[in-house]
């Protein structure tokens, strides 16, 4: 009987580049920036890394295929490098690979790196991409905001809200993340905004305006993972332990079956329930000290609060407006600014979330520190609501 991943692997070092429009940095530079910080944090030599996982989504834009871009950028000692891609859950997927490698006993120390270099497209927003030789011939030529905007119409219809009521709660999501990012020197967007600005902004994809959309950023984040025993031998008395790492991809039901009404993300619900079980959480709303969720768009964050079981069905708008997920609320969310303001270099985002949880658990978050949390959760929703990959990871502070 499998026992899950809980407490089998420790994170001993993490690094994260500054996110943003890094016009003078390539993917290799960004990976080195993140890696340098992680090495210093972990206190291990580069050549002790025995295997690495590279997460990158837009290979055409950011790097190229394979694990080579990581191996070459860091001049690793020819150790195995696996390139992974799982939409916006790519960074978490890279971490999962490294963590599983350590847990299996195959290696002692592994590296997970996520990177994306988006600002070489020549235009705003995410790059255009083909959806496949068949899908391109029938699926709409959607954009990410348009695909996620669908949640808004469906959520409002299901819960009897007007779009205007929904948009007011969505606006608070963005205002909160902008406020949080002011205390994050690595964040892409560090300007305060008001609800009036959000609601008055030009429409990108109804009902999402410009301020309902996250930043499109360059950046890299990485983690060095090992066994709890080796972590101790490195002098890490208190260390961040992986409590759960779950992934739930769609199997087509959302897009193709009537059982889904478009107002929520079933995969998030599945990944969350598995992760809570794996981590041994019985009352996540009271146990989690902070969360980082996939706020690619404000409406995503809103519906995900219910999918994670943190808001009761239909209650997310009220909870959001009441400050439940503000930095001083019951469950601080996006304390670093989230995808919205820290930025969203796709392949790096899962590891960037882990980085914030790690930083907060170790009490290193400075002006944005939220007390002394012992458990944090990260969530990704890759793809689009009707066809996605959800990931939920839970990290905890193991004190000795």
């Amino acid at each position, binding site marked *: 009987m499998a026992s899950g991943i809980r407490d089998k692997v420790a994170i001993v070092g993490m690094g994260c580049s500054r996110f943003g429009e890094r016009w003078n940095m390539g993917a290799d530079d960004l990976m080195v920036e993140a890696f340098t910080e992680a090495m210093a944090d972990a206190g291990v030599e580069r050549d002790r890394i025995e295997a690495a996982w590279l997460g990158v989504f837009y290979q055409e834009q950011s790097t190229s295929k394979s694990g080579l871009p990581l191996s070459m950028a860091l001049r690793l000692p020819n150790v195995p490098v696996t390139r992974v891609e799982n939409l916006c859950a790519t960074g978490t997927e890279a971490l999962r690979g490294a963590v599983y490698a350590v847990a299996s006993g195959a290696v002692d120390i592994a590296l997970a790196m996520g990177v994306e270099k988006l600002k070489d497209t020549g235009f705003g927003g995410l790059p255009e991409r083909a959806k496949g030789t*068949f899908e391109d011939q029938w*699926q709409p030529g959607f954009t990410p905001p348009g695909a996620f905007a669908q949640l808004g119409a469906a959520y409002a219809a299901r819960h009897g809200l007007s779009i205007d009521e929904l948009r007011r709660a969505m606006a608070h999501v963005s205002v909160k993340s902008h406020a949080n990012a002011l205390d994050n020197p690595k964040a892409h967007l560090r300007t305060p905004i008001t609800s009036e600005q959000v609601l008055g902004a030009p429409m990108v994809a109804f009902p999402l305006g410009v301020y309902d959309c996250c930043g499109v950023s360059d950046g890299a984040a990485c983690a060095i993972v090992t066994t709890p025993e080796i972590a101790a031998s490195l002098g890490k008395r208190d260390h961040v332990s992986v409590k759960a790492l779950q992934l739930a991809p769609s199997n087509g039901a959302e897009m193709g*079956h009537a059982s889904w009404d478009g107002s929520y993300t079933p995969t998030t619900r599945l990944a969350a329930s598995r992760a809570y079980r794996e981590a041994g959480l019985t009352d996540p709303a009271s146990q989690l000290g902070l969360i980082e969720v996939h706020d690619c768009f404000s409406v995503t964050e809103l519906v995900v609060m219910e999918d994670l079981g943190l808001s009761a069905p239909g209650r997310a708008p009220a909870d959001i407006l009441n400050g439940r997920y503000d930095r001083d609320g019951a469950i601080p969310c996006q304390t670093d600014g989230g995808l919205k303001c820290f930025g969203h270099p796709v392949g790096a985002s899962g590891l960037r979330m882990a980085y914030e949880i790690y930083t907060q658990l170790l009490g290193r978050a400075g002006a944005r520190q939220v007390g002394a949390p012992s458990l944090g959760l990260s969530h990704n929703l890759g793809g689009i609501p009707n066809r996605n990959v959800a990931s939920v990871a839970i990290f905890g502070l193991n004190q000795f």
Partner: protein
Amino acid sequence: MTRGISSIAVYVPRRRLSRRAISEALAWRLQSVGGRGERAYGNWDEDALTMAVEAGRAALGGREAVAGVTFASTTHPFLDRSNSGLVAEALALPAQVTTQDAAGSQRAGTSALMALLEGTAPSTLLVAADRRATQPGSVQELNYGDGAAAVVVDGQAELAEYLGGYSENIDFVDHYRQAGERHDYALEDRWVRTEAWGPFVRRAVAALLAKTSVAAPAITRVVLTAPRATAEPLIRTLGLTNATLVDGLHDRVGDTGVAHPLLMLAGALDEAMPGEVILVIGFGQGIDALLLRVSDSAPQRRTGRVLSGALARGLTDHAYVRFLSHGGALALDWGMRAERDMRTAHSVHYRKRAALNGFVGGRCTACDTVQFPAAPACVNPECRAFAPQTPIRLVDLPATVKTYTEDWLAFTPSPPLVYGNVAFEGGGNAFIEFADVDPGEVSVGAAVMFVFRIKDIDHARGFHRYFWKATLRRS
């Protein structure tokens, strides 16, 4: 054996450009601003083929028994790929139907109709459609319109019985469009009126009446696509003492080219009483003349709203620049997103063509769940069986909007790109683009229907690829 027409339908695109909008845009080069009425024009995702499919669908009205499809047009999107074959697949007709593209003249529709009426094929669908590009500022821009018409020709003649036809071939070049050219080159209308319309029609009608032994006063309606100023005096010279000119639709639609005689015939058949005789003239490098007698069963077989219904679905438009852009006459800047490669994997299209051309999904033989696209394993989370799926055509199933957005970021030649998830009655869901909807029109739960449209235009390789889109079911 009695031969005739058993069904007729038309398709006119939704937008009708006010001629005044054209003349106002061109006021700086005109002596006076004016222009009466409006002309129909297709959306960016419509061409002669998509319009033909819509007219053909309506004419078939669910009957699948036709043995052939003929598609007449001078603006077939493909010079070398069977346009009628694609129409037949879009209509989900059996592979055994014969297909024929008719082209080359404004007379292509009436000539094809006459050939079918004089033939022996048990039942054939004739569709005629044109979307003629016009040079901005030209007379043709004012006078032309986009549209399609379709008839089912068979031995039942439920709407009208064929009495006979007469045809002459004459290389009279009133206008032409050489291969590879976008626009027509038209000659002086006075010459065409006096040297062609007048003598050709008089000669053809005389010969036809003699051939069919029909007396001139028996004819009650005349379909003549000539400008009214030409047509009115002309029919007075024919001795048709009881005939009226069928509305040429200049004020509502414009001249739809190959489709136009059939479009006008639809208007006549909406109203004519059993026993009335209708003269249909086709003109273009010669002349076709056909006589049809309205069948006794016509009143039971028709709605009487074929043409008026299509006219009523129009939306007056004053956006001349949109008209130019949708018609390809003006290349607007669509930004870098429009540079996305639209290459079609034709091997994929071939193996998935039932889904793509005919919007055919699958019904799981284990649990009956309808799904699109059909797949090896059932999409129902309670089933997921690797069970065979029986083909099911989704085109005519009632459906409603589940989710939607109006996307101003995505590339489309007609922003915003509207798309969403739709749910079919009785199960089945599809993620699909919407056509012909304006911002603010779509809502969750709204009833939709499906139309065959251009999905993408591959400018790099010169290719229209097609798929079905949802549009609002407007009352």
